């Protein structure tokens, strides 16, 4: 076991001396796998939980697509499950579906899978620490997800169903219990769940920041950190500064709903033909508070994926990252600008139009660091020696898809154009290109890439490529068409848009997208089987199956408790691939300095 010298101030996980008493299997199982303070186990716990929710979110999306393509027709499976009258989906059930699809995907999948799963698993390994700075806090950050899982999960079964006011939860629809079926208990549970997700993220973010600042291995300077760690670091900063606002806003909404405050309800409105109680509030206030968190949250949802993709891409292009420092600066730039662009979600919300202009300029500017990152990834490929592993394919497709998602954002940033495309499928296309075609592809790349480190075995490459190919085709079939639907003005969130003459002819196109979506979800079965199969029967991977440079690859696969069997000492940055004059095509961060390597570095 570990003979690591303990050097972190918060490190409390010393290796227990061998117990003389008989092993207590249940207690040991619980402390090893359930209430573990080991960052790797916590990371895997996050990974498995989020993958389960990913499946649920995907199935919810399928049901949504079904209704959009064939409104009022019999719904297979769901029609029977929920005993809708006449087999057809009721509109409030549909609104609940897309609300919960977004909620699950954002709060229970993307944010926890990036920060929770990969952040936890990778940060100590990549900086050469034996665990997080605050392992107990770390364990709590996972277990605080469970109340959220329960709250969101249970809300499907309460009267009126789960929240159905969109994931943005705009009041007064949400503050008034009579406004919508889902505005009842479902919405309360939604707010409670959200709060717990927030607490979990907050605990994580404090931990990540501290760990990255104080627990780096000797020689690991800030500018020798891999991009993944930089991205995680800045994500943690974003969370730490933006989350309190959302938590406060969530409580305000909860109070509006339960104890009759009126933060978000204007005076004298009549909802469901009844006078509402308290007044004096402003619905727009919620939008400001919500987007003050949720716009930075958009970057929380992509920055870590960008970091991981950078690492994967350099490894399989066998080439240093093009412009390491500009990449770091652009991540920081995105984070900084991310705090002053929230108003672009509110151009037509009734907010002062003059304010719209300032937000438009800052929004245009945030495209810059994104562009810099894209060009740098292209620069990384340029002159490389590309290995088409599954992880690399996902990483390249991340770049390819992020270009689309990024460029479509410019349409929305342009305020006059936004007048037309706001709340249409153009927006849906945009954020699915960023979040699904972007982040989810990045996550798959990361899973295929770090799987050997997690389980000591590699995933099946052939089925991995089949999975990639099908996902890639179907995802573009589903989401690319949304752009042109958006150009027609096809609005989001309509249970049945075809009774409008303007949109009547779009049904076949939506049916096509639904077929693609069905295919997309179905082919994840390949991934699921490959994943579990490889966990047990995949070919054994050594410490460094990809010949990568990072510190994590010096540890055993899977790393034992305390991670490293010898204390890593860092001599260089993480991207020393194909260093001229060096025999190997890569120099790990722990490799002792070579004369020519040092020479080449300057």
């Amino acid at each position: 076991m570990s003979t690591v010298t303990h050097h972190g101030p918060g490190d409390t996980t010393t290796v227990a001396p061998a117990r003389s008493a008989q092993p207590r299997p249940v207690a040991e199982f619980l402390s090893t796998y359930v209430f573990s303070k080991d960052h790797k186990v916590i990371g895997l716990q996050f990974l498995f939980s989020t993958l389960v929710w990913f499946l649920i979110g995907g199935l919810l999306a399928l049901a949504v697509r079904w209704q959009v393509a064939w409104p009022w027709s019999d719904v297979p499976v769901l029609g029977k499950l929920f005993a809708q009258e006449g087999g057809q989906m009721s509109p409030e059930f549909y609104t609940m579906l897309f609300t919960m699809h977004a909620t699950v995907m954002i709060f229970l999948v993307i944010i926890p899978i990036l920060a929770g799963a990969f952040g936890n698993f990778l940060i100590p390994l990549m900086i050469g620490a034996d665990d997080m700075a605050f392992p107990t806090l770390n364990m709590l950050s996972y277990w605080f997800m469970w109340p959220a899982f329960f709250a969101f999960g249970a809300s499907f079964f309460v009267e009126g169903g789960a929240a159905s006011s969109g994931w943005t939860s705009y009041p007064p629809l949400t503050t008034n219990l009579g406004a919508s079926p889902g505005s009842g208990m479902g919405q309360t549970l939604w707010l409670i769940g959200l709060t717990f997700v927030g607490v979990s993220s907050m605990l994580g973010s404090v931990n990540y920041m501290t760990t990255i600042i104080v627990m780096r291995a000797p020689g690991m300077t800030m500018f020798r950190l891999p991009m993944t760690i930089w991205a995680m670091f800045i994500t943690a900063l974003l969370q730490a500064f933006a989350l309190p606002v959302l938590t406060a806003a969530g409580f305000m909404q909860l109070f509006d709903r339960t104890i009759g405050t009126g933060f978000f309800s204007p005076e004298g409105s009549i909802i469901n033909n009844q006078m509402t109680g308290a007044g004096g509030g402003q619905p727009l206030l919620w939008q400001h508070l919500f987007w003050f968190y949720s716009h930075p949250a958009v970057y929380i949802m992509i920055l870590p994926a960008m970091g991981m993709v950078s690492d994967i891409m350099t490894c399989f292009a066998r080439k240093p990252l093009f412009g390491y420092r500009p990449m770091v600066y652009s991540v920081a730039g995105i984070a900084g600008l991310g705090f002053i662009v929230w108003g672009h979600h509110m151009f037509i919300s009734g907010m002062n139009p003059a304010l719209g202009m300032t937000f438009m300029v800052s929004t245009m500017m945030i495209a810059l660091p994104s562009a810099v990152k894209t060009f740098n990834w292209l620069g990384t490929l340029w002159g490389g020696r590309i290995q088409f592993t599954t992880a690399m394919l996902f990483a390249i497709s991340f770049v390819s898809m992020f270009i689309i998602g990024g460029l479509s954002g410019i349409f929305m940033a342009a305020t006059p154009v936004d007048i037309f495309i706001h709340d249409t499928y153009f927006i849906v296309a945009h954020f699915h290109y960023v979040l699904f075609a972007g982040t989810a592809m990045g996550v798959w790349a990361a899973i295929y890439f770090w799987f050997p480190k997690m389980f000591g075995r590699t995933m099946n490459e052939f089925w991995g490529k089949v999975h990639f190919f099908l996902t890639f085709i179907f995802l573009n079939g589903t989401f690319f068409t949304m752009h042109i639907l958006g150009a027609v003005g096809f609005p989001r969130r309509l249970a049945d848009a075809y009774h409008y003459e303007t949109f009547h002819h779009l049904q076949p196109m939506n049916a096509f997208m639904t077929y693609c979506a069905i295919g997309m979800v179905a082919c994840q079965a390949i991934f699921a089987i490959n994943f579990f199969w490889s966990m047990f029967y995949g070919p054994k991977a050594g410490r460094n199956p990809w010949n990568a440079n990072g510190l994590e690859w010096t540890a055993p696969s899977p790393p034992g408790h305390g991670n490293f069997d010898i204390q890593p000492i860092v001599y260089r940055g993480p991207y020393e691939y194909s260093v001229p004059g060096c025999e190997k095509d890569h120099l790990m961060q722990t490799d002792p300095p070579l004369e020519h390597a040092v020479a080449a570095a300057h």
Partner: protein
Amino acid sequence: MNRHSFFVCESLQRVMQNASPALACTLLLCGLLMSATGCGKTPAASFRPNMVEAAKQRLTPDQEAQVATILEAMFGTPDDPVALPETGLDVSKLRLAAGPVHSDIVGRKNGLFREHCSHCHGVTGDGMGPTAAFLNPYPRDYRPGWFKFKSTERADKPTHADLVTILNNGINGTSMPSFALLGEAKVDALVEYVKYLSMRGEAELSLMRYYFELDDEDEGKLPETREFLVEEILLPVAERWQEAEDAIIDVPEMPEVDLQESIALGKELFYGNKANCVKCHGVTGLGDGQANDYDDWNKVVKQWSDEVLSAHDASTSEMSREEKAEHRAWLARSDKALAGDALDPRTIQPRNLRQAIYRGGRRPLDLYYRIHAGINGAPMPAAAGTLTPDEIWHIVNYVRSLPYEYDGELGADRSMVARDRL
């Protein structure tokens, strides 16, 4: 030892060992695709029986089945409606409105009722669609055959045109939207279907009530002859729908007096003992007079649930074992009917007359109808015979001026005056 074996149970491991990943992939893919694209269609829609009435009339399961059989013979199913010639309904219109939503061979949209109405009013027209419980007021239950806003006398059915007007204008102040943009033909078909559902509901009620009148020699079974069903059950209902067209209220012209004078007279009547509007609509006109009354739909449920509640409390000590068992079965069934087939009764509030919201239409003519005939199904009584037409017109004028009346004296209740938001 594999440290991650806890994730999967032993049996799964064995299965995984024996199957190749390719085979498993294919199987799972097929399974997912099949379940997603629908091998299992949901069963065809059916009409829901009137459980409250069945429990109330203490029908046996056999009798319930008989009612269902008779009704299916007389009216068909939601997907395949039948209208006997005596109903006077146009089957081709019914077909347009009935069934699941689909486009027929010429691209005409069918299944209009389920597309536009059933999520509130329910496939059966019992006002208990999936959304119903969340609406205030509840969506209308067509089955008892009561309709509120019409141009006919209180006790009469609405005319076809009345229902068309409701569909075209919606009912302001409720969740009923306007369907004018569907076009005349579709609205017409929907009205026909509403009439069909209402006739079916009324026929169901009278069938269920008829068991009570049976003689002992009938052995608890209704005669199933066409004559009985048409003469005793269908015609009394259908004829009243057909008579409605001749029962339109005759409205005399508005008296030729100065508007302000008429308003003053109307105000006097409003507050006076003769018209007594003030008792329910309140001295403020805000509808804050009578607050604990129910409309007829809710009253039925309220009375029935009170009865069942008191039966729960009643002593069973003097009953024989069989009686006790029967009593318990009946209670269980009544509770089930109340829980699954009735919405929690809610009180009805008199209209706030200062909002300029008039559910039955804002034309002076509509208000005249409301005062003349009252509102069927609601506590609002008919003034015909009590008030002269001129007096009714004065009240109409006063009510129309109420939203614009100086309301300073309302003080703290100012927020209730919502005329500024319609």
